[in-house]
Each structure stands twice: as C-alpha cells, then as structure tokens.
C-alpha cells in the first residue's frame, strides 16, 4: 500500500511540476501569431500546390498579413473564399481569371524521331541529348515529367503521346509549366475554348518534314477570324483571348486540325449564362 502511495505521490508531483512549468513557459515564450493568419489559412484550400508563388498555404497566408501579398493569388480559391480573405485583410481584391493548363503539341507518336533514346524516361533528361529524340525541336517529348509534377493528378498520358489535361482537376497552378523543358505547356484562361496545339517556330516546309500534324503557317485561320484575335508571330499562331469570341470558324478552317476546341460548348454557354 505504501509503495503505491509513494509512487503516486512522486509521479503526481512530477506531473504537477511539469504542468506548471509548461503553463508558465507557454505564457512567457508565447509567439504572438496574428489571429488573421489562422482564419485566412482556413479559407485557403490547404493543397500546398505552390501556384500562388509561395511554398505553402501557410506561407502565403503569413505573407498576405505581414508582407502585403495580394489576396487573389490563390489559383484554387473561388470568389467566396477570396471575398472572405479580403474581408479579413480589409482590402478589396478582384478575383483573378481562372486558368487551365493546355498542351501546345499533340504530335505524339506521329512526330518523326531522329534517333532511339534509351536513357532515363524523363523529359528533362532526354532533352539533354540533342534536345530529345523528336526531329521537331519544339515537340512534346512525352515522358510525362509534367504528369509527375502535377499535385492534383490532372494530367494523364499513355505511351509517348502528349498528356491530356483533365478540366475537372486542373487548377492552373503552373507546376507542369515549370518542369517542361520544351515549354510546350501554357496556361490559358479557363473560359477560353479555342486552343492552338502547335508550338513550332519553324517554317511550313520544315514542319511538314518533321511532323504530320504541325502548323504549316498557312495563315488561313488568321484571314478567317472575324475578330482578328489571331496573329502570326515567329511562324506560330498566337491568340489574343481578350478578343476571341469562341465562334469556332478557325477550327473549321484549319487544314491540319491543330486548332482545338478544348472547352465543351455546354460549359462555355453556362459560363456565359452565369
């Protein structure tokens, strides 16, 4: 009985002392954290994708409160969440346009190869050797570095084909853009439906030799466009999404079928209705 009592008293005493010490320490050494950071962090999605330019959601929240970062940089937040954050911060912010990743090449297996690559299956490693095994030096290499880099599993690929972007999952965080050694992936507005799927800066004759589907710079889409949203820069068709009305005339006009409708019509019309 005495043993039990003694051990109880000793252990209880140690526990009590430690508790008191911790209580004092938590008061004395308390880190004053702005309560706003916690609220903002709760409003943020917590995916730590890095799309805002900060390494984690916490870092972004901290920077918003202390460093004055804009509250609209999160690619995942909807208008409601951004509104919540700007309420906490007391400054108004316009919601940024939602973006989506799009791949500017779909040559895949039709692109002519210049040699057999037997090294590490990684685009960045393959591009170290003569810029990859595709004869077209602007082509997607198809080893899927972007697929691995995507924190939302929005990209999928089969074989050496160019990856496919899932509209439901892609948030436009830009991690895939950063890892692509060929700069084939671009972020385009989510509302846009016209996407030009060729990255080549070569002239039409060269493109014909190296790829069955590449843009041959025939300018037909540019002539057809009623809003003059399309233009030719370095033998590459560029699109100004602020002018584009998604009429789809260029899609019909393109002889190589590289202008794609990436946004299903229903979604586009829904966006217009809203």
């Amino acid at each position, binding site marked *: 009985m005495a043993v039990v009592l003694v051990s109880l008293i000793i252990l209880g005493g140690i526990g009590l002392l430690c508790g008191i010490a911790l209580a004092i320490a938590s008061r004395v050494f308390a880190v004053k954290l702005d309560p706003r950071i916690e609220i903002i962090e709760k409003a943020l999605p917590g995916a730590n994708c890095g799309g805002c330019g900060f390494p984690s959601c916490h870092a972004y929240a901290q920077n918003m409160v202390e460093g004055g970062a804009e509250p609209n940089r999160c690619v995942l937040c909807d208008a409601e969440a951004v509104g919540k954050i700007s309420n906490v911060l007391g400054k108004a912010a316009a919601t940024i346009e939602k973006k989506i990743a799009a791949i500017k090449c779909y040559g895949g297996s039709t692109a002519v190869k*210049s*040699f*057999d*690559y*037997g*090294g*590490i299956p*990684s685009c*960045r*490693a393959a*591009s*170290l*050797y*003569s*810029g990859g*095994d595709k004869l077209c030096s602007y082509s997607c290499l198809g080893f899927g570095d972007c697929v691995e880099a995507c924190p939302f599993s929005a990209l999928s690929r089969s074989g050496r084909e160019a990856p496919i972007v899932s509209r439901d999952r892609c948030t436009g965080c830009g991690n895939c853009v950063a890892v692509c*050694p060929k700069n084939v992936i671009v972020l385009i507005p989510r509302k846009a439906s016209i996407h030009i799927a060729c990255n080549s800066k070569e002239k039409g004759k060269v493109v014909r030799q190296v790829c069955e589907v590449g843009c041959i710079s025939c300018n037909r889409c540019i002539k057809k466009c009623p809003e003059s949203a399309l233009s030719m820069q370095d033998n590459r068709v560029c699109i100004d999404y602020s002018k584009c009305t998604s009429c789809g005339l260029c899609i019909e006009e393109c002889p190589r079928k590289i202008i794609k409708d990436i946004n299903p019509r229903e979604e586009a019309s829904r966006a217009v209705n809203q």
Partner: protein
Amino acid sequence: MDGFLPTFIRRTQTPPTFGEFTRDRPSSKMGIPERVVVPLQDTHDTPCDIMVQEGESVRLGQKIGLMGKPPVSVCAHASTSGKVDRVGPLPHPLGFLAQSVSILSDGKDDLDDLTPLNPKKIGDDKSRLFEAFREMGIPLNYELLYGRGFKVSSLLVNATEFEPYITSKHHMIKERGQDLVGGLRVLIGACSASQAVIVVEKRQSSLVNILRSATKEVPEITIKTVLRPYPETAANLLTQKLSLAKSNHSKSVHAGDPMSVDLSSLLAINNACFLGVPFVEQLVTVAGSGIKDPQNVWVKTGVPLLHIINHAGGSPSRLGRVTLGGPLMGIPQQSLEVPLIKRAKGLFAATAFLFDEHRESRFYKRTPCIKCAKCVDACPASIIPNAIADYVDNELLGDAEQWGIFRCVECGLCEYVCPSRIPLLEIMRLGKVLLKGEESLLARINLKTLGW
C-alpha cells in the same frame, strides 16, 4: 555500350581498354574532304563573328570567324580551300544548331599566306603572344590566363588514355613527341611556368622513354606515371594525386592550381610557331564494332563524321550508336552530318544497341539499387554515386549538392560497374542541370566531357 554487353553479369571493376585494335597500327592521313563545316559556337548563346559570306572562295588556313567574347575569343580557320556554300545555323555535335560556315572543297588545299609566329620576336609582351595564339585558333584556358595576368606556376598535361578504344594520345606522343615538347616549351616560356608535368600511365613505358629523351634538355618538364588513367575532366583529382598544389574539392579556383593543357593544343602551338599553320588538323581514333579498319587518322577539323567513318571502312547503315569521344564519356550523335570539333579525341561507332519493342534496352534494364557500393569503390572523385542518384531521383537537390554532385567528373565508371544497370551518369548530369537551372549547361557539360 558495344563490346560492353555483358556475357556474364559480373564484370571487372575497371573497363577493358581495347587499345590493341588501334595502338600498334600506323596512323593514316585522310585525303581532302568534299566539304568541311566549321562551327563558330560552343553553346547556343556563345557570341560569334562570321568574316566570310556565301559564295566567297577561301584558302586553307584563312580566318573565317571569331568564336566567343572579345577578350577570350578564338579564331576559326578554313581547314580546306574552296567556296563557302552556306553560312548559318547547322547541326553541332553537342546537339544544337550552331552558327557555322560550310565550305565546299575545290580539292586543291591552297595554303593561305602563312607566317610563323616567333615568340622571340614578339618579345616580353605576353598579351600579344596570347593574342597570336588566339589568332591561330589554339584552344587554351584563356579565361584563366587573362584572369591571372598570363602567369601560371605549373602546367599539367594529361596523356593518360581514360577511354576504352581510344589511343590517339598514345599515337600523338609516339609520332610527334618532339613537336609536343617543342609546343610545351613555348607555352612554358609564354606563361612563365616553373614546372610542367606530363602524366602518362605506368603501362605505357614506351611513351615514357620517348618523352624522357625528348625532354632531356628541358629541366622544367617532368614525366610522372600513374597507375590508372584519369579522364580529362578530372584535372583537379590528378593535381591532388601528384600533390602539385593544395587543391580542395571546392569549385573556386586557387592561384596555385596548375593549368591543364590538351595535347592537341601543344601540337597546334608548335605548328603555329614553327610552320605558321593554324589549328586545322587533329588526330582522332576511329574504332568500335561498326568500323572495319579501326585506326588513328589525321583529320581536318570540321570534316563531317560520315566521311571519317567511311574512311575507316564503316558502313553507316549498320551503325547503331556513334559517339564523339569514347564509349564511356562520349557524346552520342543523332546525325553523321555533324562536323568534327577541336579537341575531340576519337569517334566510337558501334553496330547495335539493342532495344526491345518498348524502346527500352534489353540488356540495360534498370533494376533497384542493391547497395553493393561498387560505384563507390569505382568513383575516382570519392563521392557516393548511388546516394546522390537517389536524391536526384526524388528531387532532393539540396541534399544531392551537399553530398558532392558537383565533384562528379562524369567519367561514367559508376554506370559501367553498376550490376543493377542504373544510369548513374545520366542521373548525375540531370541533377547538375536541375541544380543550375539553365538549359545552356547541357552544352557546357558536354564540352567538359571533351576536356574543354
């Protein structure tokens, strides 16, 4: 790697030399080529200055362009006489489009007016002497020379043959030993060096004798022997091994570090000083299973690789893999139209590099690391390749740097000995590129492979 395909899974720690194919055969001289292509860029962003236009006729040894930024730019010369038929971006062996001058030969090799540069006449003005070297197109480490005010305490000449199959250094010493020493003497005088070390392998005893007799009257030059060959990239390891200077593993350059000089540069200095000929010719070994007549050939700089392979009796249609350099460190080539560049030591052409239907090598299928530490034993730079490869694979680049990825000399021995067939060399190169975060590093890595 052809000739390296494992018949048995276990291989020796050191690769076979295969030198017997070419070492005892006399070297040949290639005739006047139909066409030469002289690239004027080393990386895709090197500045260059083209001095000729399309349609102009040039003579052998005529200056046709400048490579690099003005204080350290080197002249490029026409290596044959003929007509310039194309000026513009053409494929370079390092895998990018370089500004080049293509010359269609007239089959005469008319020499331009040449005057030998005489170091004694130039006198004490060192900058003028090195300017003359640059005019002659001799590749030297000019950045280091200009940085140190043309004073280098010691020179290091690595004459060991690290690459299997390649024996061009051996041949160069055997045939032109006197000239090499002559070039080295001029260079010693030019950078007021107190010593110059020529490193040869212990088993190349005939070379030691040739060099000893050639350097009898030059007390500054010492011949040292080492047991195993060192790659060109491992100059600081060699320095350490021979205790030439206090060298540590850091990337910074110390004032006492020796300058490593290439054998072909020494020969070019000799030719420039006594014959007045600029750097237009070099010795390369052509070997490999795709070559009928493996041999050493004196080839003009800028000759397309296809001509060299044809000269040695290889049939291009049967070739599976061609690398500029040896089988371990060489740069794989995608096209045989690319020209031979300065300082390339050899051309390795193999018949087959077998792939299965998934385009994966049947013999070199990667399996998990079994931590046997063979790569650690083989590494001349004393790093732990398997650990670093693990970090690079998992994108822990900070750790990879801490474990010494930049000490890697890219010799490829780790990849050669790996029983799990892990492409360690490729992973190291990838890791370096990811750490530096620049595309142009590719070309620089490959240049280092050639000992640039």
